[in-house]
């Protein structure tokens, strides 16, 4: 364990832990020694059942630091997302969906905006809201989710602003995934919302074969913390604090 830098807030993050119904060892027991806050970037379960979420909740309960999560597509598989949320909340986890939470760590205020996000494509290669109702519904849903993130971010006035997603906002962190499936891995409109309001860091998961580091067009650091990418229980980021939040776009 390293000595914490008092001028920094330490943020741990991981996604795509895909917990099933059998007991797991996620390696999170010591996270409070290394971080002040833990972000979970979706696909927390394999099929999105209450039973799986209960196993996960057992792993998260009592970690000794705030835990903020979004769900992923796997967490919706059995149409029981509300049950998953219930289990997580019972373990003290804050679950975001087009919403925010604010925390104070030391003397620093931290805001987290979160959404699962959705597909749609990366800038220059997007699906468009044209044609069949099903196609329009797909594209429209992504737009609505991005708009929800935009609204959520617009209300944050904290010194540090974090964004947690499941789907990727940029192509950078999808590199390594087949190009054919990029439209199902992320949506540039999420990055557009981030750049419009500014953030210090965006974390996401979903792209198991993607790359770890990227950046929005406006310059906000983006990190793919899918566990198959980081290949460790979590990644830790140090953010200088306090500082005045400024838009980077």
């Amino acid at each position, binding site marked *: 364990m390293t000595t914490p830098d008092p001028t920094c807030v330490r943020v741990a993050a991981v996604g795509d832990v895909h917990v099933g119904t059998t007991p797991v060892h996620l390696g999170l027991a010591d996270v409070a020694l290394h971080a002040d806050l833990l972000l979970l970037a979706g696909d927390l379960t394999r*099929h999105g059942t209450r039973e799986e979420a209960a196993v996960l909740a057992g792993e998260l309960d009592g970690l000794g630091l705030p835990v903020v999560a979004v769900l992923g597509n*796997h967490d919706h598989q059995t149409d029981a997302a509300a049950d998953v949320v219930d289990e997580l909340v019972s373990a003290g986890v804050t679950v975001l969906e087009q919403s925010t939470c604010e925390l104070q760590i030391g003397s620093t205020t931290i805001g987290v905006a979160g959404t699962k996000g959705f597909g749609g494509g990366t800038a220059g290669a997007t699906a468009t809201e044209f044609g069949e109702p099903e196609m329009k519904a797909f594209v429209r849903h992504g737009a609505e989710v991005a708009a929800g993130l935009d609204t959520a971010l617009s209300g944050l006035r904290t010194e540090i602003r974090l964004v947690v997603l499941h789907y990727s906002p940029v192509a950078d962190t999808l590199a390594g995934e087949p190009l054919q499936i990029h439209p199902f891995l992320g949506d540039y409109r999420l990055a557009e919302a981030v750049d419009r309001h500014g953030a210090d*860091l965006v974390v996401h998961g979903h792209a198991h*074969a993607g790359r770890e580091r990227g950046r929005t067009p406006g310059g906000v650091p983006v990190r793919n913390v899918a566990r198959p990418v980081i*290949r*460790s229980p*979590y990644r*830790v980021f140090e953010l200088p604090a306090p500082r005045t939040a400024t838009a980077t776009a």
Partner: protein
Amino acid sequence: MTGRNTSEEPDEYLAEHIRSALAREGAHQLGITVSVHGSEVRVAGAVDTPECRAEVLAHVARLAPGREVLDDLDHHPEVPPEPPERIA
């Protein structure tokens, strides 16, 4: 005329049907590829754990009875944690 009255499903279609079934059954991991060549089904890509690897292979064996399943899967080994990254 071609494309009709074939006694066996073309390899490409069978491969995609296996891949789709893996997804539906929850063993899907983004990045897994399935290819079929005659009597062989090759599964490649990365999975999270050895248990997941075994599960995927068992699924494929059930989905392609009578064919040999070739295992080109790899699970992601854990690596030592990196030091914290300073976000400037």
